[in-house]
């Protein structure tokens, strides 16, 4: 055991002091933060104040618009869109009456306004409205700013004074939706808003993402470490002091710890913005424990497979190519993330949960979404344990035989023979 810990410590320190690791740990969150910040910076920098950011000019040649309704209309449209499509409330949009098109176009060019709508004088008979936007590519013309707000303002202006006040309110806000959800057992209960549903999922789903990442990071390090040891020809020296099993165990512990440290750092980096957004990250203790079980089993499975594969190639690159077969198989559940998320108890989800290569990712995902039936947990844990047993035994056998083969890659028949041999 002492030697296993010596190996684990050495592998951990060797990995976490590498430039590549430090870049991945610190650089990646920074990179994503910068990517996320760019649109915000672009939007806020511009050349105008927040007031000008959402200003839209309206030239009413038909004399139908009641600008006194604008504020209320904008508020109602904003409230509807908040609840349906966007998590971020729209703020600062203004519909400003303009008289002169030339002046409006000049302001448009100077970026003082985002768009200019002209309600033509024959609007009442033709419905004709022209819109002027800056030519900034396809998307600027597809969805001009303030379009929904203007339509709502026109509707409200047209009926104001012609219908009773309550009806005007319904025109302004036709639906005050209450949504209910029906469980699989037929229980009906009020549904929370999408935003609160989403915040409830952030914790479990974040845990799913992080633990999945940890499995792949750590087993990736193991693959690389094994391939490097073989390329550097140190395995024979190591075998003069330790058994293949001790080497495998030491590497699995040391590199697993390096991978966990990496995602712990990511988790902390993610926690800070969620605290800023005042999102309560809710994760049940049962969810955490079960997820950790699948993380541990998943890591052991892929680490053993990667170790056995890493030793086969003559170079790191060659080993990476060989290991793609495991990486792709384990990623399959992510390709059907949508269907599994929509029905976490479907035959597809359950099938993937029972197969060792796809079980860790599928189960981590299902645990993050719903309460998984006990039978599914038992079957998937059982299949993973069998998978790990076979992978560890296979890796140790391949290890002993392949670690001393320098310069050539063993064929499939050779690998199968090693696996059959005692």
């Amino acid at each position, binding site marked *: 055991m002492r030697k296993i810990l010596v190996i684990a410590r050495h592998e951990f320190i*060797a990995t976490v002091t590498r430039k590549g690791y430090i870049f991945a740990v610190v650089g990646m969150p920074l990179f994503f933060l910068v990517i996320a910040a760019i649109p915000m910076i672009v939007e806020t920098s511009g050349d105008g104040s927040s007031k000008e950011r959402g200003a839209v000019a309206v030239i009413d040649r038909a004399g139908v618009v009641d600008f006194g309704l604008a504020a209320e209309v904008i508020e109602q449209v904003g409230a509807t869109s908040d609840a349906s499509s966007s998590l971020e409330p729209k703020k600062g949009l203004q519909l400003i009456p303009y008289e002169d098109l030339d002046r409006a176009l000049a302001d448009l060019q100077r970026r003082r306004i985002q768009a200019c709508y002209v309600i033509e004088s024959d609007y009442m008979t033709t419905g004709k409205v022209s819109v002027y936007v800056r030519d900034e590519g396809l998307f600027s013309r597809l969805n001009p700013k303030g379009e929904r707000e203007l339509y709502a303002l026109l509707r409200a202006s047209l009926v104001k004074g012609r219908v009773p006040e309550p009806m005007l309110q319904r025109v302004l806000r036709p639906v005050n939706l209450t949504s209910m959800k029906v469980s699989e057992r037929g229980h009906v209960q009020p549904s929370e808003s999408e935003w609160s549903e989403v915040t409830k999922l952030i914790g479990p789903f974040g845990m799913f993402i992080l633990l999945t990442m940890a499995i792949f990071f750590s087993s990736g390090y193991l693959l690389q470490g094994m391939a490097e040891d073989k390329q550097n*020809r140190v*395995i024979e020296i190591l*075998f003069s*002091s330790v058994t293949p099993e001790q080497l495998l165990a030491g590497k699995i512990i040391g590199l697993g710890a390096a991978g966990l440290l990496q995602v712990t750092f990511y988790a902390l980096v993610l926690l800070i913005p969620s605290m800023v957004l005042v999102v309560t990250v809710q994760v049940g203790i049962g969810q955490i424990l079960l997820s950790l079980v699948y993380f541990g089993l998943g890591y052991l499975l892929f680490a053993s497979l990667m170790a056995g594969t890493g030793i086969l190639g003559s170079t790191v690159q060659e080993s990476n190519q060989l290991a793609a077969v495991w990486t792709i198989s384990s990623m399959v559940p992510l390709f059907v993330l949508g269907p599994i998320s929509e029905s976490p108890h479907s035959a597809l989800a359950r099938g993937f949960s029972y197969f060792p290569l796809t079980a860790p990712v599928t189960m981590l995902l299902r645990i993050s979404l719903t309460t998984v039936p006990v039978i599914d947990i038992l079957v998937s844990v059982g299949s993973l344990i069998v998978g790990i047993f076979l992978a560890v035994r296979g890796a140790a056998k391949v290890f002993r035989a392949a670690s001393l083969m320098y310069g050539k890659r063993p064929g499939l028949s050779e690998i199968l023979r090693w696996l059959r041999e005692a």
Partner: protein
Amino acid sequence: MTAISLRGVRKSFDSLVAVDDVSLDVERGEIFGLLGPNGAGKTTMIRMIMDIIRPDAGRIEIFGQHLTERVKEHIGYLPEERGLYTRQKVLSVLEYFARLKGATRAQARQSALTWMERLGLTEMKDKKVGELSKGNQQKVQLVATLVGDPEILILDEPFTGLDPVNTRMVSTVIREQAAAGKTVLLSTHQMALVETLCERVFMIHRGRRVLYGHLDEIKRRYSDNAVLVRAAVDYRQCPLIARTVPENGTMRVYLNAGVQPRDFLAWLLQAGAEVEAFERATTPLEDIFIKVVQEGGG
């Protein structure tokens, strides 16, 4: 006391018999030469001794017991395929190898520093292994073998890639280790070094033993009844001689079958020759090696 013992050891890879019924004993404190042409089975034998590969048959014992993890800690192994962590610092690599041999952290550091100083590597302790010259990497490799203070040293081609200065230094280290009671199993192609270092040798060819025993005995066995003589005499007059070959200021004199060197010496004295030098000529190990390999047996 026997340090390494092999009895009836056999190993085959598919249809190729790499080591066939090999038995030998390496005594404690001796420098034992393991010889053989490329592909003869030397490295397979060494890997079986190290339990890196398992024999199909036979028994291998170190200090009278099977190779356990504890026993492994007493063996320093320099494999033919050299390897180090090229991206790591010299000192930390050496400490790691010492710790795998059972040393505590403090012992590992002390031992690594001592050996580095001994081999002139102290200034390189904080450099990455990959930044060192090939010769210095070879020295680091040797230190990695010695750093655990092993009782047995198994060195597979330790002189490969070394210049004459470093070759002499490694030879000196090997001698010092033997003088300190350590056992050295030396596998090499450099016959001249084997002659100066080893007391006993084992030669393997096509997986089988072809020579085994004290070097002097083997050389005597393979000597071709010749003597090296420096004397002013007309050799053609001697009826005991088959032929003569000049050699470095002396004459290599091949005697007829059944003639003893003392008979020839008596003839020289009787002929009134002034004998400046007279010694039994031995066959260089290299010639024995080539002869055995060409004959394909012992």
